[in-house]
């Protein structure tokens, strides 16, 4: 019932033309866009008035008893029920009321270079920030300082007499350092290294001829060879009988490669060897 009432009120029965308290004629329901049909006899949707009040809404009607006008008390103007004062009445505008956002617009013509500059700066700083984020993240995967501090080992060479081996530990592996005598150097250099299993000249394996620095891990299965042993006066692996010569090259037995040479350098000032 209530829905029916509401629809009834909404559909019709506003006075089509009235006068506002400010004295301005007000016709909110008049459809000014509707035109009279081109052919007055034609049927169509566009009539002169499409909002004629329906019969159930009251108004004058011709009955058998004569012309009767009926008005329902529930009919009332549905919009402006209360009195409006001049100061509060809305201004009637010709154009539809659209909010104005022109203050929001950056002038694209005069500020074109500036706008591009701003967009470009945003790109520059974002790219810079992204680059440092990525590089910092990658750096976090690098070895930490305590690992790096142990990654280098210093050896005082002045304590190693000629013709002696020294074994030190570096990154958990033994490193052989041999102070070679002159005859050993000549022996290592005179051999016909091109015929060896892993051909490598003695000059390629040492930085200074009297100092031989190698990783003490047999290239066969990782045992630690014994110094000053074997058929060639170098190293001998007790596990499977590989023989290395005085330059650490594999000469006999199952070892496929020469003993590995780590990265090292000499510091001239205080006769020190830095491995790593």
């Amino acid at each position, binding site marked *: 019932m209530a829905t029916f*009432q509401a629809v009834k009120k909404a559909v019709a029965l506003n006075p089509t033309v009235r006068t506002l308290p400010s004295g301005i004629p007000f016709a909110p329901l008049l459809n000014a866009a509707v035109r009279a049909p081109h052919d007055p006899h034609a049927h169509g949707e566009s009539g002169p008035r499409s909002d004629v009040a329906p019969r159930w809404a009251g108004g004058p009607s011709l009955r058998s008893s004569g012309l009767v006008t009926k008005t*329902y008390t*529930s009919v009332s103007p*549905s919009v402006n029920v209360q009195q409006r004062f001049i100061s509060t009445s809305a201004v009637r505008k010709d154009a539809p009321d659209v909010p104005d956002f022109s203050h929001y617009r*950056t002038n694209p013509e005069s500020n074109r270079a500036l706008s591009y500059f701003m967009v470009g700066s*945003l790109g520059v700083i974002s790219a810079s920030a992204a680059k440092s984020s990525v590089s910092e993240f990658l750096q976090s995967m690098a070895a930490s300082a*305590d690992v790096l*501090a142990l990654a280098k080992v210093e050896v005082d060479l002045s304590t190693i007499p000629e013709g002696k081996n020294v074994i030190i530990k570096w990154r958990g592996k033994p490193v052989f350092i041999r102070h070679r005598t002159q005859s050993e150097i000549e022996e290592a250099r005179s051999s016909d290294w091109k015929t060896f299993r892993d051909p490598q000249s003695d000059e390629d394996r040492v930085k200074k001829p009297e100092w031989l620095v190698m990783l003490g891990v047999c290239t066969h299965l990782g045992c630690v060879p014994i110094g000053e042993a074997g058929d060639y006066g170098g190293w001998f692996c007790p596990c499977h009988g590989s023989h290395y010569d005085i330059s650490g090259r594999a000469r006999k037995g199952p070892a496929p490669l020469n003993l590995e040479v780590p990265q090292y350098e000499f510091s001239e000032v205080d006769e020190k060897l830095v491995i790593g």
Partner: protein
Amino acid sequence: MLSRLSAGAFKKAASAGASRSAVNGARSASVRFASTQASGSAALESVLNSRAALATATAVSVGTIAWYTHLYGNLPFLGEAHASHLSDEGLHPQAYPWSHKGVLDTFDHASIRRGYQVYREVCAACHSLDRIAWRNLVGVSHTADEARAMAEEVEYSDGPGSDGEMFQRPGKLADYMPAPYPNEEAARAGNAGAYPPDLSLIIKARHGGADYVFSLLTGYQDPPAGVEIREGMNYNPYFPGGAISMARVLFDGLVEYDDGTPATTSQMAKDVVTFLSWASEPEHDERKKYGIKAVIIFSVLTALSLYVKRFKWGPIKNRKISYNPPADKTH
């Protein structure tokens, strides 16, 4: 045409019509009031006003309080009476103007160097510093040569050697600071049962941080009247409980600084606290520099994004869509 009426006007007319028709009576069979109309919000309202909702809310509240009381042993939001005294919490330390206090301030590295000297000559007799290695001092308070020389004065056991035995060797930069006691039991035995804490993170590990440690070091005094301190304990108002096993160790002129700074008690306390602050946060200087960079970069980025957002949205917000009804050409 209907669309010209606002939704509010529509609703007003509907409810006005409904109540009016109720007065009228002749036109509506049943009487309905606006407040009893069956709509979504009204249904929610009736659920909220129901007795079941009231009972549920009461049960939840009582249950929550009961659970809290069960967990923590006292009622929430109510103060508890404690049989303790404020002095049990320790005196609140004053805020001191540390040279590294500001958001842009680095440590005073000369002070770190002096503080290391104080630590080495005084504190290291009982307290370890086992998270700091000799190499950490390099580039902070000592040169590499100085740090290496200091490390070599200490013997470290290493090995096993080729004969399978552990051996002693002089320290290297990669070694950590030597501890005064081999383990906690030895430390307790040497200090009448009290364990001198490791100082590596002590500034972070205590309420009040640097201010607390400084106040503690300089705050030793005679116990006030009525306070009993056991034999072997010392009175310090900043220490929670007031009685501390550690005796006052810093006295004027105890160490001799190599840069000629007068070694007063407060000077030494300030230096050693600066050193310990550095030990707790070795990344401190770098961190503040990154902070400056991040704040600048992100504020500029924010400003630029606001501009670019406005730039991109300007045309969209200014777009106007209008409909012009077609004019009838025959008139």
